[in-house]
């Protein structure tokens, strides 16, 4: 290091300190509101401004709130159906697009990407118009169709990424030993794709559980999901029950993130 430039290393140290401090601040910004939400879900004050005393009241009220429980059940029904359909369509699609050279392969791949990137509100309104045009009554089917449309591409992409790292000689060996392509897929490919399929399915489930924008347009009163109800409640104002609900969701999200990290490690 030439002596004429002694400032640079100290400049770098300074930069390092800046980066470290900045990152810490941003994490405080990201987590403080969430922490506030969780802490005040245990506060007995109705207005949740000042800390009064510790209570489980809001969780009890939440458990007794029939419309919310109903919406939560709707969300679980929709998310489960969405996950199953997305995993089937996404996994089959990923394998077929990987395994065969279809005419229009590229066009199909582009088509798959559209629902992932297009603004959700556009998917919502166009599906709504479509359902009304063909005379499909809004209900669970319309919500599930909407959710599968933007969820399965995520499964497909996750599985495709895994397929790219897969040793194709495994499948060839199965084929050489007399397995049909379908059997080889089921017995050889699927087991080695399992972590990616599970990660994709988990992603589809979470996307579906959290989705609001498309759902607002394609739901009926009876098939309103939890986010739709939460949105309506949050519009009215503060409600400690929502804090309690949020706390549950946050814990579930942390579990989800840890589990999907674990799956990622498995698929390496």
């Amino acid at each position, binding site marked *: 290091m030439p002596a004429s430039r002694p400032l*640079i290393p100290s*400049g*770098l140290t300074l*930069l390092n300190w*800046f*980066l*470290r401090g*900045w*990152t810490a601040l*941003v994490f405080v*910004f*990201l987590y403080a*509101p*969430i922490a506030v*939400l969780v802490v*005040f879900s245990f506060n007995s004050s109705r*207005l*949740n*401004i000042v800390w009064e005393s510790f209570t489980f009241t809001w969780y009890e009220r939440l458990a007794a709130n029939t419309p919310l429980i109903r919406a939560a059940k709707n969300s679980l029904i929709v998310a489960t159906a969405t996950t199953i359909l997305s995993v089937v*369509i996404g996994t*089959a*699609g990923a394998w077929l697009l990987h*395994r*065969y*050279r*279809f005419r229009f392969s590229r066009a*199909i791949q582009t*088509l*798959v990407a559209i629902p992932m*990137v*297009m*603004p*959700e*509100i*556009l998917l919502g309104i*166009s*599906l709504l*118009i*479509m359902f009304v045009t063909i005379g499909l009554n809004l209900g669970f089917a319309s919500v599930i169709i909407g959710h*599968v*449309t933007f969820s*399965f591409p995520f499964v497909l992409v996750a599985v495709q990424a895994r397929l790219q790292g897969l040793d194709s000689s495994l499948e*060839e060996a199965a084929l*050489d030993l007399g397995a049909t*392509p*379908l059997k080889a897929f089921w017995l050889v490919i699927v087991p080695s794709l399992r972590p990616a399929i599970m990660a994709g399915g988990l992603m589809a489930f979470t996307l579906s559980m*959290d989705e*609001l*924008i498309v759902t607002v347009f394609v739901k009926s009163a009876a098939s309103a999901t939890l*986010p739709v109800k939460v*949105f309506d409640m*949050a519009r009215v*104002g*503060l409600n400690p029950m929502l*804090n309690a609900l*949020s706390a549950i969701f*946050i814990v579930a*999200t942390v579990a989800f*993130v*840890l589990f999907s990290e674990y799956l990622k490690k498995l698929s390496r």
Partner: protein
Amino acid sequence: MLAGTAPAVPVSDHNRPGWKAWALLAPMVLWLILFVVVPGLILLVYSFCERDEIGGVMFTFTWENYARVFDPVYLRIFGRSVWYAALTTAICAVVGYPVAYYIARVPETLRNKLLLLVMVPFWTSFLIRTFAWITILKQEGLLNSLVKAMGAGIGPFDLLYTPTAVVIGLVYAYLPFMILPIYGSAEKLDNSLIEAAYDLGASPVRAFSSVIVPLTMPGIAAGTLLVFVPAIGMFAITDLMGGAKVPMIGNVIQNQFLLARNWPFGAALGVVFMLMFVVTYVILQRRASRSA
């Protein structure tokens, strides 16, 4: 072109889809055509239709809906949506870049932990995270009670239902979507290039602006895509944080479909928005995929 990659089975035959493969792929392709392509086309048709008195749709051709889209009232809302989305994107980039860069530079064990810390807000419902800010910014919320408790004699501040609140909500919701892609390209950054810049006498600022930023441009472009596009059409955050005071294009579209029941006009707004999206997407996608 495929010959010779796998000698045991003739590859061209091996990879050529039979009717069975086509039959298996068909449901997915049909799904996409039926629920993405066709609805998009119907939307286009509706945008040229007329609305009757009771909110139904008459299939008579008209340009009127598009003429109304270019009414100054709606142009202003479009402009505001783009401006807020752009502001959100810029703030996310400035705030998120150092974080992404720092995470990409630290040793692997710490890096994985920090990444987990980004993933949790990334996957937490934006609705919940927006609600968190409502509890903080509301007039009788946490911030004002803190100010009051300190007894500084200022406040209470009316922060909720202001443009500032909308931008805070948007930045808070989308920041992780900017950090992750930038991290992705910062992680691939070749250290020797930065060292070369220093060895050649560049200051940290110079090295950053002429070496590091250009090399991480694909990440910035991808992050912009993930923040800017959804932020333009977002109606839930703007609704919750801005009330009815700061309507954005998403709120107007939602109103036309769910309250005003003027579907043709809503469809026209949707088509214009779709065009804006496609143009933005193509430009950013080109930048994002341009390898450094």
